[in-house]
């Protein structure tokens, strides 16, 4: 296998990982504040939907491809935040089971986005094709052998944005007072309350950021790989993002690594026919491999979970 192919595989890996990075970072914000978020899939669906229709109407209104794509991202953020409030109100204010409330988001997403798409586009199950983000080359850097092919040629802006957000999340979470408070309400809410941290307010913010980021993840799929929103645009990636978050031990850098790992497993499918040794292996085994590896790694290395200690528990000030 030559360097060119390796470079291309890395490139494709990053494209597939982009959505997962956003969504798993979103999951971290919510869960660090103590709110389980099984609704990542739903938020991604809402984001993919919002991006598809916003970019379409922006293009209709005469905006260029890239501008309309950014409008798509913006609208995805807005919708992500709005629907995240459903999860927040149910699980924080009304103390509903957070797992159930997350599942509700997934149900509502699957139903309402398709309903709206059919309503808006006369019964069609797909949103119209949009231009989305175009790939670009970074001048000079693209000529570096291997690295240029992998990181600086045919790249989408969303991929860079995702990597930027990894470091941003790390910084916010571990270097700012906001991050400290957010983590404290997830670890020990009553202690945080005692020192004057508004537990519920911080949890609301955590869930809202979560909704926004996961929605950007969904939007990234529509605006780069598919160009249109349909019922299978997201198809289970939100669940993989949850796995990436847990796999990465709720740490942004770890989640990034896990997301890249899953991205690689998706990318490798496109290239598997290139290797001679793989011809005789049934494709299902190759498809299975990343999930199998995840389990093996979990058993061997990760061991006992390192979830925030108040994760999943509604905060009740009267029950100290």
């Amino acid at each position, binding site marked *: 296998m030559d360097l060119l192919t390796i470079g291309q595989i890395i490139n494709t890996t990053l494209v597939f990982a982009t959505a997962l990075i956003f969504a798993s970072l979103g999951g971290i914000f919510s869960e660090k504040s103590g709110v389980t978020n099984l609704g990542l899939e739903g938020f991604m669906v809402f984001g993919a939907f919002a991006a598809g229709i916003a970019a379409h109407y922006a293009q209709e209104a005469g905006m260029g491809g890239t501008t309309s794509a950014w409008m798509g991202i913006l609208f995805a953020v807005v919708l992500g935040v709005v629907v995240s409030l459903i999860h927040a*109100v*149910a699980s924080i204010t009304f103390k*509903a089971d957070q797992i*159930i409330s997350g599942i509700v988001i997934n149900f509502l997403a699957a*139903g309402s986005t398709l*309903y709206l798409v059919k309503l808006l586009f006369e019964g069609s199950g797909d949103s119209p094709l949009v231009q989305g983000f175009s790939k670009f080359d970074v001048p000079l850097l693209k000529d570096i052998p291997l690295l240029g092919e992998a990181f600086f040629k045919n790249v989408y802006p969303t991929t860079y944005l995702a990597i930027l957000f990894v470091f941003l999340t790390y910084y916010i979470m571990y270097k700012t007072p906001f991050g400290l408070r957010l983590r404290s309400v997830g670890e020990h809410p009553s202690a945080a309350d005692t020192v004057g941290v508004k537990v519920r307010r911080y949890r609301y913010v955590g869930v809202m950021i979560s909704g926004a980021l996961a929605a950007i993840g969904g939007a990234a799929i529509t605006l780069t790989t598919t160009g249109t929103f349909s019922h299978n645009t997201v198809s289970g990636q939100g669940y993989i993002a949850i796995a990436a978050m847990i796999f990465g031990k709720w740490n942004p850098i770890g989640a990034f690594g896990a997301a890249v790992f899953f991205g690689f497993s998706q990318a490798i499918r496109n290239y598997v026919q290139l290797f001679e040794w793989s011809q005789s292996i049934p494709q299902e085994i190759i498809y299975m491999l990343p*999930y*199998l590896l995840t389990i093996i790694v979990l058993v061997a290395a990760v061991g006992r*979970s390192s979830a925030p200690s108040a994760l999943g528990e509604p905060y009740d000030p009267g029950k100290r």
Partner: protein
Amino acid sequence: MNNVLKWFTRDSFILPIVAIIMGLILGGIVMLIGGYNPIEAYSALFTKVFGDMYNFGEAVREMTPLIMTGLAFAFAARAGLFNIGGEGQFLVGMTAATFVGVKFTGLPIYIHAPLALIAGAVFGGLWAAIAGYLKAARGVNEVISSIMLNWIGLYLANLIVRQFLLLKGENRSVDISDTASISLTWLSELMGNSRVHMGTLIALVMAVLFYIYMWKTKQGYEIRAVGYNPNAAEYAGMHVNRNIVKAMFISGMLAGLGGAFQVLGVFQYQTVMSGSPGTGFDGIAVALIGLNHPFGVLLGALLFGTLTYGSAGMSFAADVPPEIIRIVIGSIIFFIAAQGIVRWVLKPFYSKRKKEKVL
């Protein structure tokens, strides 16, 4: 008589009913916003399901696997486990049943069909037990391991069908032997030649067995104790880890059996699938609507099945996109989960009842 009245006024009865009504109303509002007539849509929905025998039978067929995956989720939930892997267990059960149904020939029907069912149940159970074992022995979160097992199960099912059972030139397995079929001709004829099958009766029996096991036996008591408080259960001398594996195994058995029903009762073969069928995930919703109680699951499956199957009629007769039903189901679960909202709506009624008592 008084007991019956008391049962009907209990919170566990009133709250889900009000949640269902609120979900239907919310769905109606969404239809109104979309420019549809909700009354027309809902009546089309119910006419589709209850209008004739054939459609009613098909709706019952649709409900049957949902009962099984719903029971599966509820059983694990009683042990404090979140079995999101119903999907994979369903597929593995389906494949095991197909394998036995196709490969084991020359057996009489009263051995072959039960054997295929048992194979489906056992392999579904083993599939879930992997997640249970990993949780018990290594502390691996069962949510993530069962998500992974869902995907592995999907590809494993496809692999087995393609390698061992493929019908030449088609993307599906060869048909199972007639001796493995659980179709019931008399029931099917009674129900307008719909594809109803013995699985429905087995599912009802399973719900009853679930109830007896969980609330009337020592083993069931242990599982519930572990679910309520594993530390206390451990202190009381129960084997928490063993109960976790056991609960997952039984949970997976129920889901696997549901998968077996689909092959042996409905399709008679298995296709190579591009994505998982979703029955396992829908079972989570069914269990949540049924508050993780076996009889609640039956009602949940009835509601879920009616709404889903009927939504086709709704879109045919009233031209309403059937996806609206997902919104209705989602909001029903939402209101059941966030009981605070329902209580708040019911507040005026509650305070009235209290006053009566004072008088």
